[in-house]
């Protein structure tokens, strides 16, 4: 057996762990030895993106675009959530699933909407929350809702614990994951105080005709089994110039979700922080989220 053949068959044998065996020789090799994203030159990033696009096309026949654009200068994203407006309809949850190509089976969702009974304890103790509420109509009388997703902390515990630096904070404040660099140890999931990090326990499935072709390498590109993913403030939308709102902000029927540049004093989010009394989740943990909750009424 030639050495090359041996390596190939060995890699295929082990490759069941991640890689589809129908890949070509070169692609298998390139996938396995793909460099750390932050070390790649712009050309290398482009090549990797092209390879991933081709892989997806070979598999499904659908052409997608994987962007690798960097953070815009002078931008740090912030998010606001108006708890007096939220009605708990979960449209944000499903808009996020569609936009970010999250696995339909098994289900992966970045946003969790919690339901609380009026007067029950909440904020620092979420144990009375109901996650799987199932009413015919919302809001349920006598209840209120608090959606939770990645808080894009300035002091992110997930980044601190990751053994391979596969997750980091970008200059525009978004905490991202290099899915190809993550080894799936799930230490970040143990460290995250907001349940924001999601693991692909099985092979993620998205029907190709429902796949959003506008993707970013650090965001909604095709995913595999065995790595962690998370909300990226829809990096594929918000990093454009002019940028678009994250899908959850756009879909919200009651305008409970606010988004913008914290460095711009006239942005919607800066005005919210300026004029409302805002609070952040689990302040006692010193994670310094870029995600602000407030009441407009």
């Amino acid at each position, binding site marked *: 057996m030639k050495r090359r053949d041996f390596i190939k068959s060995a890699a295929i044998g082990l490759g*069941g762990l991640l890689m589809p065996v129908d890949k070509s020789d070169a692609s298998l090799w390139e996938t*396995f030895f793909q460099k750390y994203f932050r070390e790649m030159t712009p050309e290398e990033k482009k090549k990797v993106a092209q390879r991933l696009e081709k892989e997806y096309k070979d598999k499904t026949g659908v052409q997608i675009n994987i962007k690798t654009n960097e953070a815009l200068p002078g931008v740090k994203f912030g998010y606001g959530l108006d708890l007096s407006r939220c009605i708990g309809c979960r449209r944000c949850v499903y808009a996020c699933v569609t936009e970010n190509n999250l696995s339909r089976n098994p289900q992966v969702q970045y946003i969790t909407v919690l339901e609380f009974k009026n007067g029950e304890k909440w904020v620092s103790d979420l*144990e009375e929350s109901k*996650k799987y509420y199932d009413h015919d109509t919302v809001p349920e009388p006598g209840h209120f809702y608090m959606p939770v997703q990645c808080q894009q902390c300035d002091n992110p515990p997930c980044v601190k614990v990751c*053994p391979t630096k596969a997750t980091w904070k970008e200059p525009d404040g978004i905490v991202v994951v290099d899915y190809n660099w993550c080894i799936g140890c*799930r230490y970040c999931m143990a460290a*995250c105080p907001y349940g924001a990090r999601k693991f692909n*326990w099985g092979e993620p499935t998205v029907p190709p005709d429902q796949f959003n072709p506008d993707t970013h390498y650090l965001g909604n590109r095709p995913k*595999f089994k*065995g790595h962690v993913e998370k909300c990226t403030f829809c990096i594929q939308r918000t990093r454009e110039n002019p940028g678009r709102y994250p899908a959850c902000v756009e879909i919200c029927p009651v305008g409970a979700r606010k988004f913008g540049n914290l460095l711009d004093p006239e942005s919607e989010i800066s005005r919210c922080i300026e004029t409302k009394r805002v609070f952040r989740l689990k302040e006692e943990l010193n994670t310094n989220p870029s995600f602000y909750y407030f009441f407009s009424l």
Partner: protein
Amino acid sequence: MIEFTKDLLRHLMKGNKLYYAWLSVLGLFIAAGAVAYFGQADKGLIVTNMRDQVSWGFYISNFTFFVGVAAAAVMLVIPSYIYNFKPIKEIVLFGEMIAVMAVIMCILFVVADMGKPIYAWHIMLHPNFPSSLLVWDVIVLNGYLVINLSAVLYVLYRAAQGKEYKMSIMWPIVFLSIPWAFSIHTVTAFLYNGLSSRPFWNASIVAPRFIASALCSGPALMILVFQIARKVSDVDVSNEAIQKIAELIAYAMGLNLFLYAAEIFKEFYSQSIHLAPMDYLFFGLEKGGIHHDVLVPFTWVALCFNVTAFLIFVMPGMRRRFTTMNVACVLVLIGVYIEKGMGLIVPGFIPDTLGEIYDYLPSATELLVSAGIWSIGALVYTILMKTAIPIYKGELSLIPKGQRRKIPVH
């Protein structure tokens, strides 16, 4: 060397029916574990019962327990080299071999838990050091393996040449291995301890409790293994050595129970919201009309076993009688296995950070893979013993045949 290898293989093949039955059982479990693992590699970790809510489970519980077992060596190294206690010095090698076995099992359990194990080398290219305690753990565990393996190989190599080992070479190994043994527990404890998101782990008592319980489980396993070894082979382990180890367990268990009591008092007396994981362990939690209590029986069994074992170990009469002492060792092993395995890892995730309660018990795949890893550990230890004993007895030697003479051990 070639002749030595041939001799070694001959010795490994030599054995009675019981030996072969033992090997077959291990082989069977390893094969079943391998099949289960390939299923997991193919379908993903979805075949386990872990989910986003409880993202670490049985594998990491076993890993944590075996980090504790690896302490076995240090419990023998200190009395034998530092205090020159002869009965223990005769068996210190077997303790170091237990450490080798335990660390190998630790590494296998972590690999079994990983989503993308074939990319584990990423940790060497971009280690998040010193920020990530997981990188620290990789360093200390592999270091501990190297230290113990070099001690074992060096002593065996000298013995195979018919010579005593040189203390000038052993001292550095010994001096490195003692603090290093404590470091593997401390670092592993800090791995959980440092997470402010998990109040159950984020308590300063975690690391001291880790060490206290480790100094119970490792030695208890040793006592049992040594007795089996001296029954099935002609290796000599003195009663005095075993009694000394048993005495050490008594102190360690006393400390462990005290620290545990301190933790229980603090949580149940102050009744803060951080009581929930402890409440879940002992009584179960009520949520949405469902009583979540899958770990309750285990918790009480562990507590009763540990207390009973402590009472047996602490009473000299009971400790000196081998039947009661062996029962106590089994109780310690089961008690610490529950307490420092599932009893430590799972409640860290219950309730989860958003208040959900997900009842976790391992799936069939997790049990099979774990049984496979246990068997690999047992096989490694069997092979190490089958190599060491004939070398000690002079039956397996690097000295050319004809020049051999029976050498005294140590």
